[in-house]
C-alpha cells in the first residue's frame, strides 16, 4: 500500500492485490478507513463499502486468472474517488442495465466504467460526504 501527497490537497492511496475474492475484505477495510478520514458518516461508509465490493465483483467476473487488481483511492475532501482496475478476458464494459449497476450508482453516487486498448477494465466510484458537511 502506498500513499502519495498530491499537489492541491489531494492524497492518493494505492493498493494492489491478487485478483481474487479472498482479498476483497482488505479493500473494504481500506475503503472504510479512508472514508472515515474524509468524515463520511457511518452510513455513507457502509454504502461505499458495499459499492466497492460490488464493483470488484463485476471485475472479478471477467478478470484474467492470476493477475492483479489495482485500486487507487483519491482523497479530495469531501470527495473520495475509488478506481478499481484489472485486466479482463473480454474487455467488456459492464451493462448499465443490471442490478449490479443499479446498486453501484445508488450507493456510490457517480460511477463510470471504461476499457482501454489492453482490455483493462476500470470502474470508478466517486462519493462525496454529504451528511456531515
Amino acid at each position: 500500500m502506498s500513499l502519495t501527497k498530491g499537489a492541491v490537497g489531494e492524497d492518493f492511496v494505492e493498493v494492489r492485490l491478487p485478483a481474487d475474492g479472498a482479498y476483497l475484505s482488505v479493500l473494504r477495510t481500506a475503503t472504510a478507513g479512508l472514508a472515515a478520514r474524509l468524515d463520511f458518516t457511518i452510513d455513507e461508509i457502509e454504502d461505499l463499502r458495499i459499492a466497492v465490493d460490488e464493483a470488484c465483483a463485476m471485475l472479478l467476473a471477467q478478470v484474467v486468472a492470476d493477475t492483479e487488481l489495482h485500486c487507487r483511492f483519491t482523497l479530495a475532501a469531501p470527495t473520495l474517488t475509488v478506481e478499481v482496475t484489472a485486466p479482463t478476458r473480454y474487455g467488456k464494459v459492464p451493462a448499465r442495465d443490471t442490478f449490479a449497476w443499479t446498486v453501484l450508482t445508488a450507493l456510490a453516487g457517480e460511477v463510470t466504467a471504461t476499457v482501454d486498448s489492453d482490455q483493462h477494465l476500470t470502474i470508478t466510484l466517486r462519493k462525496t460526504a454529504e451528511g456531515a458537511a
Partner: protein
Amino acid sequence: MVDPTANDVVRDAGREAERDRARGMLAELAALAPEDPRRGPLRDALVEVHLPLVEHLARRFRNRGEPLDDLVQVATIGLIKSVDRFDLERGVEFSTYATPTIVGEIKRHFRDRGWAVRVPRRLQELRLHLSTATAELSQQLGRAPTVHELAERLGRSEEEILEGLESANAYSTLSLDVPDQGEGDSPAVVDSLGSEDEALAGVEYRESLKPLLERLPPREKRILLLRFFGGMTQSQIATELGISQMHVSRLLARTLTKLRADLLVEE
C-alpha cells in the same frame, strides 16, 4: 466457447422489457384511487417483479452472521415500502429509488439484531457503546454520525471506532467472506435462478417445482414466496396483503396441495 456478449444482449433485452413492464405498472398504480381494489394485486405484482433486486442486495450482506433468509425478508419489507412511497414524478428509475431504501432496511436489521457471531468480549462491549452512541448522536444531529464524532463521544481513537464498526459487520472469517466462485457476475445468477430457488433450496423436487410455481396465480405465488422464501409468518403476510390470517392459511394450504398434486402428475 459461448460468446458472453451475445448472452448479455439477450439478458439486457429481457431486463429492459421487464423495466418497461414495471414502469407501466407503476404508472397504473399511481393512477388508481386509494380505495381501488385493483391496487392490491398490482402492488403485489410490482413487489414480485423486483424480488431479484431484493435478493441481490441481501446477498451483499450475507456471511455477516445473519441467515440470508432473514436478510431477504427485511429487504422485501424495504421493497414494499419503496413501492408504496415511490413517486413517478421524480423521474428516477424505480430500482434506483428502491435500492437505498432496501439497503437501509437491511442495515437497520443489523443494528437491531446486535450480533449472532462470536466476537471478543472487548469488541462486544465497544460495539454496545457504539450502538448507543450512534443512536444518541443520530438523534442529536439528524443524520448518522461520522467516525470522528463517535470517537469524540466515546473517548476512543478513530481506529478503535473503525475496528468496532468492522466487527459489528461480523465478517465472520476471510474464507467465508469470499463470494462463491463464479458468482461474481451476480445479475446473471439472479437471472438464471429466479428468486424461487432460494425458497426451495433443500426441497428435493426443486427442478420439477419450478415450472409449476410459474403457473401459480400471482397472489398465491407471492404468499408462497413470502412464507417460505421471505420467512414471514402467516400473520405478517396477512398484514402485508390486507387479508385475514385465516385467508392466508387457506390459500397456502390450497396452493401447497395443488403443487403436490401437480408434482405427482408430472413425475
